[in-house]
């Protein structure tokens, strides 16, 4: 699963790692998975020099968050995917295209949202020991943003 996260969130992509971590944090927040939503919010923030404002605004209300119209459209698709893949309507895809998203970017937003519906269940299902100290998540996000998910020699 680490390799999947590495490719999804850090592999070559026209969506930035900050945008992709934001989608991951957003979906995890909707799934109410504390471990994933706090750690990926921190990763998103550390891709933006430690600024949590954007990811926090996205989790509160992405339509009014200070992000691009394209990312809003991709988050709208991610929100539907979180509910169920069948919820994604042609109008959602059209909106993303209209805001400049390519088919690849739409696909990758779907892929990240769907993958976090797996990761969230894996983590919650296995009842991972969830740290309660917010500092622990900050250090974790810093490591995720700088070093990624796969151990390097």
């Amino acid at each position, binding site marked *: 699963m680490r390799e999947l996260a590495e*490719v999804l969130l850090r592999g070559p992509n026209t969506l930035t790692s900050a945008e992709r971590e934001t989608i991951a944090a957003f979906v995890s927040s909707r*799934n109410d998975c504390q471990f994933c939503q706090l750690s990926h919010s921190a990763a998103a923030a550390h891709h933006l020099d430690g600024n949590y404002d954007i990811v926090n605004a996205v989790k509160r209300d992405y339509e009014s968050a200070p992000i691009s119209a394209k990312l809003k459209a991709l988050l709208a698709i991610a929100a539907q995917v979180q509910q169920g893949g069948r919820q994604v309507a042609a109008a959602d895809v059209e909106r993303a295209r209209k805001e400049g998203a390519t*088919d690849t970017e739409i696909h990758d937003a*779907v892929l990240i949202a769907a993958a976090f519906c797996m990761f969230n269940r894996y983590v*919650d299902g296995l009842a991972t020991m969830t740290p309660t100290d917010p500092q622990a998540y900050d250090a974790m996000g810093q490591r995720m943003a700088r070093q990624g998910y796969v151990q390097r020699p």
Partner: protein
Amino acid sequence: MFNGRKGGSLHLPDVETNHQPGPYQTLIADAKNRGAEYSKIWDLFAFKNDFTIHLARLSQGVMRQPATISAGLRELVAAYTSFQNECAFCTQAHAAAAAALIGDEALVWKALHDVESAPIPEKEKALLRFAGRMTKQLPAVDAADIATLRAAGWDDEAIYYAITTCALFNFYNRWITATGVPEMSEEAHRQQGRMLATRGYGRE
């Protein structure tokens, strides 16, 4: 059963036609040459090889690694999760794989449609109820659910595989329905199910 997509293209044309070189590109080309029906999930696998190579390995481990829960039951959990998520393609594909491994297609469909009245052991019903809760009521799943599974006779290894199988299909179901992978004919699904039962998920 809920309606799936019968035939047609993916919702993302650039994804459907952009096959990277690799095992899935070859599979698709072979099927097209034979004029055979092929599974459009292969288009997705061929589109993003650097991701799907790891996904295929993960799927093989989750679904086939020898453990205290049989591969047939894991396929039934996969089909049940897919049925709950209304993913027609995955439901048919993994019901077929479960039927091939368990040897009773009618039994598999009875379990999917109504766990409580299906002629399966209480132990297996507990497993499917758990997969239903993981799929539909994730935040509510807690230690009491695990205790219920243990009381039904499952050990921690089996529970681990039940969780990972259910989690994996909550991914596949969303990826496949959101991109519009259509159902195949019943016979094509049966044939693919036998392939999954005998060859598994790896394509390397």
